[in-house]
Every structure is written in structure tokens, then in C-alpha cells.
């Protein structure tokens, strides 16, 4: 069952073309990866999907699905603690605050929730934003470079969390430069190159994917 369907999506910034005629389908209960060079348009594609950018083409979403987006750079209000940030994000999505769930989830992330979120380290900020997404109970998770800045233990936990989400029937779309991590958890990896979906990988080995990327440059 399709959760998101993108048809002939194009996006330009002035005269610069960032995405050209992108068509993709994201199905329920699957994990998708998105790879591409810096400036290839991964974040732009995500922002189009979230309605943050205007675009030409079509993005169809299944009715009544909740989509959670983890940007590469998260915004935090100053002088607001981690817990208050979580409370705000949960309430803003009309969800009920389950303190037991926050406690359980924080058992994994180990965040000092009573400290100001803006004072957190890069990795801690990412973990907090991800925690907020998980507590919002979304159907689709779009994660832009979720492994960036996260420590080794955090990365292992994150991969576990993503796999658990898939088992719960959620759809996850991840962009990353870590091919090995994506290869480990994703069923499909899309390679964004020269503003188009250049290649789709399913069963290929890491070596084959890397060779394809090198040849395409």
C-alpha cells in the first residue's frame, strides 16, 4: 500500500535546477534510503515532501497519515528544556503526553531532559528531535542524515529503533552518506545524481553500489 507517491516532481532555485522529473513510490512498512552527493537535492526533496518548498509535479499522500520529519539541522528555542521541548512537540501534534513512554525512550537515549535543549551537543540535539518524532506516533518518518553527529552506541540504537518502527508497519525514508548503514537496514536505496533518480538498488552488495556511484561521477 502506497503511503507517498511522487510524480514528475521538479524544483528550481531561480535558474538553478535542483530536482528534475522525480517519480518515486514509498510503500507501507518499508525502509527506504536516499543517497547522493552534497547538494544533490536530498534535503530539497524531503522539504518538498513536507510542503516546506513549493514545487512543480505531484506528491500524493495516503489519507490521514501523519508524517514526521527530522531535519539535518533542528531548531530549538533558547531557554527551553529538553522535556519542555518534547511536551510542546507532542501537544502540538494533538497527542497525549505519556511520561512513562518518555522515560522508557530516554532510557535508550540518556538525555539530560531537565537541561536547556539549546545547550545540548550536536548528537544530543539530534537524539532529542528524533525522540520528539517517535513520541508523536507518526506513520511515516523522514530522517535527513540521522546518523550525523551521533555516537557509536547511538547509531546502533538508532538502527534498532528504525527496524522496530518497520516491524510496527511504519514507513521510514532515510538520507545518509553511510552506505553500509543504509545497506544494512534499507530494502530499497535511491541514488540521486544529476538532479534525477539515477539508480535504484535492491539486492546489490555494498561494493556494487560503490562501484556504480564511482562510475556515475
Amino acid at each position: 500500500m502506497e503511503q507517498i507517491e511522487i510524480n514528475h516532481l521538479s524544483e528550481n532555485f531561480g535558474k538553478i535546477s535542483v530536482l528534475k522529473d522525480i517519480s518515486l513510490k514509498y510503500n507501507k512498512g518499508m525502509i527506504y534510503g536516499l543517497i547522493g552527493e552534497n547538494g544533490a537535492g536530498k534535503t530539497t526533496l524531503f522539504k518538498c515532501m513536507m510542503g516546506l518548498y513549493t514545487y512543480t509535479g505531484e506528491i500524493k499522500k495516503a489519507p490521514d497519515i501523519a508524517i514526521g520529519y527530522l531535519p539535518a539541522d533542528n531548531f530549538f528555542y533558547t531557554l527551553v528544556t529538553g522535556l519542555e521541548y518534547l511536551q510542546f512537540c507532542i501537544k502540538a501534534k494533538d497527542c497525549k503526553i505519556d511520561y512513562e513512554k518518555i522515560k522508557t525512550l530516554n532510557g535508550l537515549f540518556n538525555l539530560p531532559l531537565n537541561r536547556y535543549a539549546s545547550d545540548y551537543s550536536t548528537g544530543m540535539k539530534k537524539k532529542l528531535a528524533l525522540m520528539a518524532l517517535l513520541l508523536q506516533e507518526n506513520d511515516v518518518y523522514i530522517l535527513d542524515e540521522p546518523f550525523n553527529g551521533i555516537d557509536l552506541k547511538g547509531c546502533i540504537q538508532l538502527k534498532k529503533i528504525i527496524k522496530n518502527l518497520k516491524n510496527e508497519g511504519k514507513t521510514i525514508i532515510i538520507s545518509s552518506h553511510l552506505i553500509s548503514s543504509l545497506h544494512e537496514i534499507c530494502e530499497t536505496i535511491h541514488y540521486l545524481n544529476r538532479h534525477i533518480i539515477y539508480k535504484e538498488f535492491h539486492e546489490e552488495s555494498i561494493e556494487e553500489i560503490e562501484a556504480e556511484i564511482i562510475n556515475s561521477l
Partner: protein
Amino acid sequence: MLYLYLKLKLLILRRIFKEIRFFYGIIILFFFVLLSAVMIKIENHWVVPVTCILILGYYNNSRKDRNFLKLLTNHSTMLLTQEYFVLSLPFICIELVRRNFLDSLGIILVVFILPHMKEIKTTYIPVKLQFLYKGDLEYIRMFRQCFWVYILLLLFSIMGLLNNNVKIPKACILIWGLLETTGYADLPNKLYLLKFRNFKTFCNFYIKSSLWNAGLFLLPFIIMLLIYHCEMESVLFTLIAYINTIFYMLGMNLLRQLTSSSIFLIILQAILLLPFYIFACFLPYLLLVEITFLILLSYLVYKNINYLWNK
């Protein structure tokens, strides 16, 4: 959502007051009350709506949470409209009390339009500025941002002198001095300080930079004054203004090393440095007091940041 959002904003406001402490909170409140009193008393009916629109416009353009709010609610535009309405309420009330119904209607109209406006981004062409003291990145950044103001000030000065009004170039010199100092209004990054060999190199660098940069840009004003109004009084004024600007820039650069809060820095600047800058132009002996103050400030900064060089 509005209730939730305003609750969060009020919480932040309460914490800001807690952070800046009671005394400075009282000073800010005093300035706020003073500003409100001026707004009410002022007779020109344009001042209140223009001030309100400028404040809201700046706030709307500089806000970083636009995308964050968009991701949380489908009605983010409505939320911003409601927030701007709450913020503009005092101004609308003032206008209603003064029976300027059209002005209050104008403010409300702007409140509805602002959330739909895209962020205005200014781009600065990275023109090479070889004539500036190399390495003083803050000054280079300031000059790239304020270059057009400098040209305007020069033009105003020429116009003033052509009309035999020497006060205009003098005012322009003072305004430029104030703008030059804004280059040092950002909080410093400790990593940037580590680029210097030690505290002495740091001080020497900024003294040389201020001497060169301030002098360079004052030169056109001095030449203009000498051509059109060659009097001892004008020469003395430019000399004092030059020293004054250097002291202000150095003072600001030192002061920002002592604080970790931008608001606190603005307050300290307004209390300690700005009065010196303004009054020393008319009472030059204040420069002696200022230099004593700068020496004291240097000592405090030395005590505060010298640990960076492990000494």
C-alpha cells in the same frame, strides 16, 4: 496551539528575566515604559504604526522557527498572524485611544500580510577589501554590510557642507563611528581567540586594526571638512572623533569577552561605552577617564580569558 505556543513564549520570557537578573530586568522594563510613554506622547501619527510595522517586520524576517512550526501544525500561518496580533495590540490600543482608526486598521492589515511574506535575504558580494587591516574579520564583515550607509553618509556630508552646515558631516562621523562598533557586537567564539599567540598579540592586533580602519574611513570626512570648512574647531573635532571611535571599538571588543549573553552586552554597552562616546565629543577630557576605564577593562579581560593560552 496558540495557547500552547504563547505559554512556551511566556516561559522563555520569564527565564530571560531570570537569566539577566533583577537589576537588568528593571532597566529593560524602565526602557520599555519610557518607550511606551514616548509613543503615547508623540504627536506625529505616523510614528506608532511605522515603529510597530518595523518591529514586526524585523521579527518576522529574522525568525528561525518558521519551518519548525510548519512541521508541527497545518495552520502555522494562522498561528503567526495570531502571535503578531498579540504583539501589536499595545500599538493598536495606543492608536485607538488617540482615535487614529485608520492607522490601527493599517497595523491589523500588516499583521495579516506579514506571515505570508517570504524571508528577505540580503546577499553580500565578497569584494576583496585589500585596503582594510588584514584579518580583522569582524570589521570586514561590518564594512560589507554597511558599505552603502558609508556612501550615503559621505553624500549627506557633502550636501551639508555645500549648504554651509558643518553639523551634518560631524553627525555623519559620529553615526559612522557607531556603525563601525556594531562589527564587534556579536559574542566572540573562544576558538577564534585561540588563533592568537597570546593576550598581548590579541590586544596589539585589535589596536592596530582599529587605528588603521577607523582612520582610513575617517579620511574622506577630514579632507571634506578641511576643503570646505578649514577651521581649528573642525580639525579638533575630527581628531577627538577618531580617538573616540578607536576607544569605543576597543572597549566593545573587550567588553564582549566578559559576557556570555547578547542582551547583557547591549545593556553594558548602553551603560558604560555609549555615554563615553557621545559626551567625549563635547567634553574631550573624558577621553582620559575612558582610557583609564579601558586599561581596567583590559585587565579584567586578561584575567578572564588568559587561561586560553595556558598561562
